[in-house]
């Protein structure tokens, strides 16, 4: 398992026995999109965290087990919501495709 990668982001240094990881990539027009903003909302729609996507369009959150929504904001007023279920010890991989 050491050094294994899923969805392009390395899990080196992350203890999956204690962490609940949600990660993935934002894609627009078949290209990964850097500089988009991904917000993690809880099951009540409350904001929990936000990250900007990396140079390769990737993002990662350390969450808790449960149901979450990923809200992605990109230039030109583009937004997209994606539901995701996270489980401790597993990596929830999400590809957000923007229209």
């Amino acid at each position, binding site marked *: 398992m050491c050094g294994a990668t899923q969805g392009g982001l390395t899990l080196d240094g*992350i203890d999956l026995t*204690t*962490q609940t990881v949600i990660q993935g990539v934002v894609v627009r027009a078949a290209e990964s999109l850097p*500089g988009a*903003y991904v*917000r*993690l909302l*809880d099951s*009540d729609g*409350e*904001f*929990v*965290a*936000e*990250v*900007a996507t990396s140079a390769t369009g990737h993002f*990662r*959150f*350390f*969450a*808790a087990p449960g149901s979450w929504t990923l*809200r992605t*904001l*990109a*230039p*030109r*007023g583009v*937004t997209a919501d994606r539901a995701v279920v996270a489980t401790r010890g597993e990596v929830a991989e999400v590809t957000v495709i923007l229209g």
Partner: protein
Amino acid sequence: MSRESALVTADWVQEHADDPGVVLVEVDEDTTAYDKGHLAGAVKIDWRQDLQDPVRRDFIDQQQFEALLSQRGIGNDDTVVLYGGNNNWFAAYAYWYFKLYGHSDVRLLDGGRKKWELDSRELTDERPVREAATYVAQQPDLSIRAFRDEVVDAIGTRFLVDVRSPDEYAGRLLAPAHLPQESAQRGGHIPTAANVPWSKAANDDGTFRSDEELTRLYEAAGLGRGTDGGKDTIAYCRIGERSAHTWFVLHELLGHDNVKNYDGSWTEYGSLVGVPIAVGDEPGSG
């Protein structure tokens, strides 16, 4: 204080960035963000390296602050416009810091870096050259900074506002969900603190909500109206940066008089021996 004197828009920055006496300063949690691109003319302050004492857990002192601003070419009469990522968390933290050391004209760019980027406005990697200045800081204004003993005494008496996410407040998470879960020894919140997440004060694009919306938000949580109808307030979060954002809203936008930021916040309080802690979604009793 008011919205007009504390906040500027992106359009204002584009019109006034080159004015003499206006200094743009980027402050980020991701301290590499500036190096990848910043607003033209902006200098960088690294919230960790530049604003924290390298040994003790505390601020840099008055002399260190003077040296920092002098080196960055910032004078006492300059209009300092702060902005950053993370919806201006660390820019608001720096704003509070500038106020603590008595800088008279400091403002936040509404929406910070995110709004600027989402508007597809220009960024540059060119670093400005600013001549060193001679900055004179005031004694720290402790009327806006709370320490742990005061916070313990405030349980059940003052308006304590925990601005972290509901899961952090309840003790289900120990840190914001984009950071590894390493933090205080215990989870939960200070008994009697209301939970008003900082994010409720901001729109999705990072700009602040209107004064009317903000007033309603904190009234619903039990805080009266500023300037004199409010209660003495202490805001906290995990390390004091999100609560600086809420301090900015209450003290600078809504004009509440007695609002302090507890920068020790949950990483200190949640590791103290013997203090009361409430867990779950309710404030708990004092």
